[in-house]
C-alpha cells in the first residue's frame, strides 16, 4: 500500500495555485512569487506522483492564432485529496488566494 503523500508548504502552495486556476508555469510563479527553479521541478514531481496532470493545447488552435502551443496543468482527483489534507496541515494556506495572473 502506498504511503500517504505529505507535501511541503511550498509544494502545497503550488498545488493550491493550480487548483485556483493558474494553469501555466509562469502564471504559478507570478501567483506564488516562487522562482522558476522551484516551481518547475515541483510541477514535475507532482506530475510523477499523479497529483497534477498536464495537457498540450490543440496544435491546430495555436497554429491558427500563430503562436506556440502551451502546456496546461490541472489538479487530479488524488491531487484534490492531498490538497485538502495539506490545507488542514497548513491552516493559513487555505486563506491564501492566488493573485491575478499576468497570463
Amino acid at each position, binding site marked *: 500500500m502506498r504511503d500517504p503523500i505529505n507535501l511541503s508548504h511550498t509544494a502545497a502552495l503550488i498545488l493550491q495555485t493550480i487548483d485556483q486556476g493558474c494553469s501555466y*508555469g509562469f502564471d504559478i510563479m507570478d501567483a506564488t512569487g516562487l522562482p*522558476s527553479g522551484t516551481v*518547475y*521541478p515541483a510541477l514535475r514531481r507532482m506530475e*510523477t506522483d499523479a497529483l497534477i496532470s498536464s495537457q498540450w493545447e490543440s496544435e491546430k488552435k495555436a497554429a491558427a492564432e500563430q*503562436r*506556440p502551443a502551451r502546456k496546461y496543468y490541472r489538479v487530479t482527483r488524488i491531487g484534490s485529496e492531498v490538497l485538502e489534507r495539506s490545507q488542514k496541515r497548513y491552516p493559513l494556506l487555505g486563506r491564501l488566494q492566488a493573485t491575478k495572473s*499576468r497570463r
Partner: protein
Amino acid sequence: MLPEPKRPFSLRCCAVMISIAARFVPARQRHDWKQEWLAEIWHRWQFLFHAGEWNRGEAVRLIRNCLGAFPDAVWHLTSQDKIQDGVRERLRSPWTCLAALGALLMMLGIASSGFPATRTLFASLGNRASGRLVFIWLHPSAGGGDQGLPSDLAPAWRRQSRLLDSVSGFFTGHQLVRSAATKPARLLVITTESTLFETLQVRPALGSLAARDGVVLTNSAWRSLFHDGRAVIGSAIRIGGESYRVTGVLPASFRFLTRQPAIYLMRPFIAAYPATSVMVVARVKPGVSSDRLDRELTKIAEDATYYFFKSELRYASLNSAIWTPARVFGIALFVSGLFVIAGCKVRLRRLRLAFRSSNRQASIRRASFFAGKAALVLVLIFVAGLEWSRPESAIVFGSQDPANGPFLMWLYILASMGALTWSLADQRARCRVCLRLLCFPVRIGCPGCLLLDWSGTELLCTEGHGVLHVPDLAPSWDEESDRWISLDESWQELFAHGR
C-alpha cells in the same frame, strides 16, 4: 490576431539558455520540455509587449526566470532510474566511504586554517633544541595539584647551576589591557624577566627582546591591539591601570604556553614578587640526565634554605609536553580497542582462518580497507581533538592543560570506541568480495519460532557475490552469528539482468 513584433535580444538569449539546458534532459522528453519553456517565454513577452509593459527590467526578469530551466533540466536528468541506480551504486562503493572521510578531513583543515596545532606537533619533531627546554614545577608527594616554585629559586639556579645554560621564571594572569587604538580587553599577561627569550632562543619580529623593563607582544596581540602598525615600538600600553612601553614584537611562528594573544611584561627582577610562586623554564646543557639535574637543582634549593619535604621537583621537556596529547590518544585507543574487541565479539580465530583460506587475496583487500577506513576516522578524531583543545590550552602543567587533561582523555576514549565500532559495523555490512554495502534487506521467518526455524534479515550484494544472514537472536554458542553465503557463477546471469 495581433501582428508579432520583432523578437527582442533578451528573448533570443532565453532561447539559447533553454537550448543549452535541454542538453541535460533525456532525449525522449527533450522536445516536449523545450517546447513548453519556449512557449512560456514567448507568451510572457507577447503579453507584456501588447500590454505596453515590456521594458528593460522585464527583459532581465525574463532572463532570470529562464535560469530555472537548468534546475528543471537537472531534475529530469537525476530522476532517471539509471542515474539514481548509478548514484546508489556509487554510495555503496568502498571508495565513496574513503573519499567521504577524506573530504571530512579536508573540511576540518579548512575550518582550522590548515591544522596549526597538528603542524606545531610535528614541527617539534625536527627541532632538537626544543628537546633541551624543560619546565620545572613542584608536585606534592601525596595528593594535591601541581604548584609553582618560590620566586627567588630561579635566580639562584641561574647563578649556581652548571647543568643549565639559562633559566627564567614567570607567572601568568589575565589583566585588562588597553592601547591607544583599541578598547580595553582582558588578555593573558605573562610576567617574566628578559632572560626568558634568551632561554627560548627566539628572535624579535620588531624591536628588541632584551629590554629589562617594558612589554613584548606576541604577533597576534600586536595585530589585535595595534592593527599591524609598524610604529608600535615605543608606544604606550596600559596593563591593569599602569602604563608601559612596547619594546618588541615576537614572530608569528613563536609558540609558548598558548596560541591565544599574550603580552610579556618584562620586569628587571622577578624575585621582587616574594609572595608569588612562579613557573620555571630552563635550557639544559646537552647530554644532561634528569637524575643529575634533579640532584643539582635540589642541592642548590637546599643551599638557599628551601627543603621540599612534602613535594618533589618535576621536569617535563617542551617536546614531551607538546606530545602529551599523542600519548593520551594512544592510551585512549588501546583502551577503546580492548572494549570494542570484547563488546563487538571480534573473533580473532575467524580472522586467522580467513587469512589462511584459499581466498587470501580477498581477505587482504578487506583487511586493507578496514585498516584504511579505521585509520582515517581515528586521524580525524585525533586532529579534531587537538585542534579544538590546543588554542585554549597552556603547555605548562599536565593538570592545567585541556589538551592533556582528563576531559580530552575521555573524549578520545569515547570517540575512538565510536569510530572502531562504526568501522566494524560498516565492515560487516559490506560484501565479502567487492566490499560494496549490502542492500535489499529481507525479513525472514517468525521471531520467537526458533526451535526448528530461523528468523532474521538477509542482505544481498548487488553484484551477486553472496548473501548475508543476520539472525534476530545470536545464540551464545554460535560463534558465527552472521553467516555469509557465497553465490557461485550460476547466479551471475540473474544479477546481470538486474544491472
